[in-house]
């Protein structure tokens, strides 16, 4: 075999390729054991043996991996197409080659994976991997870990592990590079290979199960290792090689440990960055979802300006409370004065369709008196929305150490205080009366044609929290 060969694993196929396996060989008959010959003649008897026959001189094109027909990187299929052999033949040859070359065929296969472009493209994974400096560092790191392991194994056990193991140092490095730089489609196959390892590493979804599995495997290995050690050599004679071995390990770790740590940390950062990106995507999804829905609704009700304004305001409110106040949409529990003011805004805008511009200064927890103040403010705001005809109502609330003040102002029609109809006066009185009962006061200023301003003042005192809480309660 002059070209990279197929690894002896995995012994299974990940996905069913639709349709046939290799229709291009059907219609040719297998002739004899010396099958690697040109066989132009045909006989219509499909035969399993046709899988092993050479067919033609190949497609004459450049050597390309075939990701559609693959077990590993699609190299065997690629070589098959290139030289006219059946992929099955090439694969068997690869396995044989891997055994004969004591494992060296495996890294050659991976190098081929890196160096041969996939069908339909000219870019190799290797070219991409050259620019992936972190990937290169990671590959060298992983390879050196395997090397250390092999050194240790070599000390304890002469022969077979080392012979077959050393080539795999290169394989591991190549695999890391392939893993980091292969296109998504090709990664899917690798994922199948790596999934069990990943769950061992705690990266699986089911972390608890992963941990248990890891413990079981570790315990098994430990017991096996110890029993091997003690059965091979007896008692104290073991100490000398073991001591030297420990020293070598220590030396290697002192030398390379910080570097490994750094690689691990880089990986961690990368993972964190990914988590952040996901968070952002999640936020974008939530924002986009609700905002896009509202925009769609706005387009549909374009002929109704009031509905458009109402929709836009409702969306704006929801976004603001979510972005700047950390409130989930739909969370309406009111525990502080400012939240109470916002609730008034929400309700009046939703029910009367008039925008309410809210400005608050300071905040404090609610008590009975402040609830009364909020109720009065709500009535004043609703009045303004219903009667003033103003296009916007301003609602200003300021929490000071000694008092809380709310001003509700509109630039609407206004009214003459001395000649108000009985029902509206009643409302004004109910606002005033409510304030008085709780030790506050209400003042109404109104000018015909210019607007109305209701100022509500409640003295803070007996039961409410101290001034420091008022000043600091609003923002973190």
């Amino acid at each position: 075999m002059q070209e990279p060969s197929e690894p002896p694993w995995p012994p299974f196929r990940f996905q069913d390729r639709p349709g046939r396996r290799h229709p291009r060989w059907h219609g040719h008959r297998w002739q004899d054991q010396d099958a690697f010959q040109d066989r132009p003649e045909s006989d219509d008897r499909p035969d399993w043996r046709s899988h092993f026959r050479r067919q033609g001189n190949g497609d004459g094109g450049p050597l390309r991996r075939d990701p559609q027909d693959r077990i590993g990187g699609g190299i065997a299929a690629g070589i098959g197409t290139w030289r006219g052999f059946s992929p099955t033949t090439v694969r068997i040859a690869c396995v044989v080659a891997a055994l004969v070359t004591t494992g060296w065929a495996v890294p050659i296969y991976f190098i081929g994976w890196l160096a041969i472009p996939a069908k339909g493209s000219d870019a190799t994974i290797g070219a991409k991997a050259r620019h992936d400096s972190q990937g290169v560092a990671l590959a060298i790191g992983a390879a050196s870990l395997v090397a250390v392991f092999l050194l240790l194994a070599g000390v304890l056990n002469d022969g077979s592990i080392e012979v077959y193991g050393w080539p795999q140092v290169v394989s591991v490095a190549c695999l890391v590079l392939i893993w980091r730089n292969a296109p998504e489609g090709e990664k899917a196959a690798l994922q199948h290979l790596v999934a069990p390892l990943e769950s061992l590493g705690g990266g699986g979804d089911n972390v608890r199960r992963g941990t248990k599995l890891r413990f079981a495997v570790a315990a098994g290995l430990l017991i096996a290792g110890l029993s091997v050690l003690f059965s091979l050599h007896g008692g104290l004679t073991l100490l000398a090689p073991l001591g030297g071995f420990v020293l070598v390990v220590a030396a290697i770790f002192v030398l390379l440990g910080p570097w490994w740590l750094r690689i691990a940390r880089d990986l961690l950062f990368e993972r964190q960055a990914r988590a952040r990106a996901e968070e952002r995507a999640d936020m974008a999804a939530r924002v986009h979802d609700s905002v896009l829905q509202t925009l769609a609704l706005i387009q549909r009700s374009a002929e109704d300006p009031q509905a458009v304004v109402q929709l836009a305001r409702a969306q704006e409110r929801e976004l603001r409370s979510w972005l700047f106040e950390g409130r989930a949409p739909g969370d309406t529990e009111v525990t502080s004065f400012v939240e109470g003011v916002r609730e008034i805004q929400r309700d009046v805008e939703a029910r009367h369709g008039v925008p309410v511009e809210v400005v608050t200064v300071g905040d404090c927890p609610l008590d009975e008196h402040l609830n009364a103040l909020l109720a009065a403010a709500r009535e004043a705001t609703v009045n303004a929305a219903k009667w003033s005809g103003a296009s916007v109502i301003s609602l200003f609330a300021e929490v000071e150490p000694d008092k809380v003040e709310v001003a509700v102002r509109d630039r609407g029609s206004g009214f003459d205080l001395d000649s108000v109809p009985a029902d509206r006066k009643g409302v004004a009185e109910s606002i005033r009366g409510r304030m008085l009962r709780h030790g506050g006061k209400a003042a109404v200023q109104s000018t015909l044609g210019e607007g109305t301003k209701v100022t509500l003042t409640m003295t803070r005192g007996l039961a409410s929290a101290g001034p420091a809480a008022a000043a600091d309660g609003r923002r973190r």
Partner: protein
Amino acid sequence: MSAAVAGEGAPRVVLVDDHGLFRSGVRAELGRQVEVVGEADDVAPAIELIGRELPDVVLLDVHLPGGGGHAVITEVKKEHPEVRFLALSASDAPEDVIAVIRAGARGYVTKTISTADLADAIRRVAGGDAVFSHRLAGFVLDAFATAPATPDVRPSFDPELDQLTTREREVLRLIAQGYTYKEVARELYISVKTVESHVSSVLRKLQLSSRHQLTRWAAERRLT
């Protein structure tokens, strides 16, 4: 970039906003009231454009991909301290406000502002006045709230900077209630000029005070 047809004496304005839709909207709405001499969509091109055009007012979005509006102000002020900035933003998170005002913007309005008000605000900034939206006024009141000084307040060189006068508070409170300068003047029996000087003085305090709420916000955004 074609300059909009504008009357004599209309302020020359540069728009800096990363939303093309918003820029063209503002340009169309402001029409003849101001002369739009250029548009930029990010920090670096904005600095270059402003340095070339030297407009009367830069209408500046607080959020820009390449570093935020305050980066533009800081950079331009080094070379051309006479250029005036009016900051705009869709949000009114306090750190946005504090960032641009402390960097040196002469005013701050939200993007929900009406066209007439925006044109008026641009004219006022061009004339050297400060422009406070009602939300900005509320925020300033909040930042200078009359809480007793806590031990961790680092006093300024000039303690006057750390608090607002009663009159300034009254003015701000009315602005926060949506009063125009004219209405504030009438309400308090003072002239519009006096209102403007109060607002400018508040702006100055906002830029120079080391009051800890302000410095804390600044520090969180590394803006000191």
